[in-house]
């Protein structure tokens, strides 16, 4: 079994991107920390051949649900709503990330788990409690919507920095 440090280095950035895609920036960091603490605790019992990405995203998904539920229970005055600050990673492509955050939850989750975490639709289906075709459809709908709001043809400056 690899030292857990290797899991943090290899998969930490991916899990952080996934958390940031599905949660507010501050909640995303909390979810990341809780995900890796839970993963560290459970790590000695992980099967040698397990799909580590799917294992981590499964934990992160549960932590994200907890975070959203906790936020829903917290009364927030309208004037205190977060400004959706730009997270550090978003300078890489702020418009794309904004468009992603504006997707309906199901599509956003399917897009994040498939396109950011690289999970197969079958894994996404079992994590989110849906079917493989439904997960595939949610990701495809999400990508279509992203395309409509975020035309990559416009971003020529990406090739000529």
């Amino acid at each position, binding site marked *: *079994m*690899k*030292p*857990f*440090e290797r899991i*943090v*280095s290899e998969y*930490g*950035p*991916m899990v*952080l*991107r996934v958390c940031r895609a599905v949660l507010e920036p501050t909640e995303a*960091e909390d979810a*990341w*920390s809780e995900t*890796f*603490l839970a993963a*560290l*605790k459970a*790590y*000695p019992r992980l099967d040698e051949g397990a*799909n580590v*990405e*799917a294992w981590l995203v499964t934990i992160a998904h549960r932590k994200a649900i907890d975070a959203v539920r906790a936020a829903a229970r917290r009364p927030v005055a309208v004037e205190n709503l977060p400004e959706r600050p730009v997270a*550090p*990673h978003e300078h*890489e*492509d702020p418009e*794309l990330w904004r468009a992603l955050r504006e997707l309906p939850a199901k599509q956003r989750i399917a897009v994040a788990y*498939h*396109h*950011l975490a*690289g*999970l*197969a639709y*079958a*894994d996404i289906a079992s994590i989110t409690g849906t079917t493989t075709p439904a997960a595939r459809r949610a990701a495809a709908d999400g*990508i279509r919507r*992203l*395309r409509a709001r*975020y035309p*990559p043809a416009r*971003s020529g400056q*990406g090739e000529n920095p």
Partner: protein
Amino acid sequence: MTTSDPEPDSPFAASPPENTEIETHLRERLITAAREHGVLDLAYRALETPVGTLLLVTTEQGLVRVAYDREDHEAVLGELAETISPRVLHAPRRLDEVSHQLEEYFAGRRTAFDVALDWQLSRGFRREVLRKLPGIGYGATASYAHVAAAAGSPRAVRAVGTACATNPLPVVVPCHRVVRSDGSAGGYIGGAEAKRALLDLETTT
């Protein structure tokens, strides 16, 4: 295959790769939380020294392993993950105290180490031998035969050699002070050159 690469039609394929490192504050948070929950079984760091980069590894009980470059630090961590626990994190601050003492030692300002040790990697007679080694004072040496006699088994000279060669805590547990009866340095887990360097350091400061 249960994973797939992001598809070429993904808008994320066009965006530059993510920052490849997790921010320091997130790592710090994980280390702190892991300790609070009692699941940081092994913490490690690397320390630059005149005898090369040393890998330092600690459990909650104490320093459990010091490894030279030539032992291959990645391989050593892999072994420890198998034999002690895979809950291993790079947590340099957990090793501040021993690092500080090692720096003093290499600067010639320290003659003995005062850190908790975890002896779990050596057993039986080998452990007996190693525990006796700090008794050989700074700047002094003892022969394998002498150490065997001190451990109560004067004929176990070869076993003393093995104990030294498999010392999990070199430098801190001074197996480098055990030399051949003819006065030549003999083998060393960190290589003959490192042994010579430590002995020189101790006799010139």
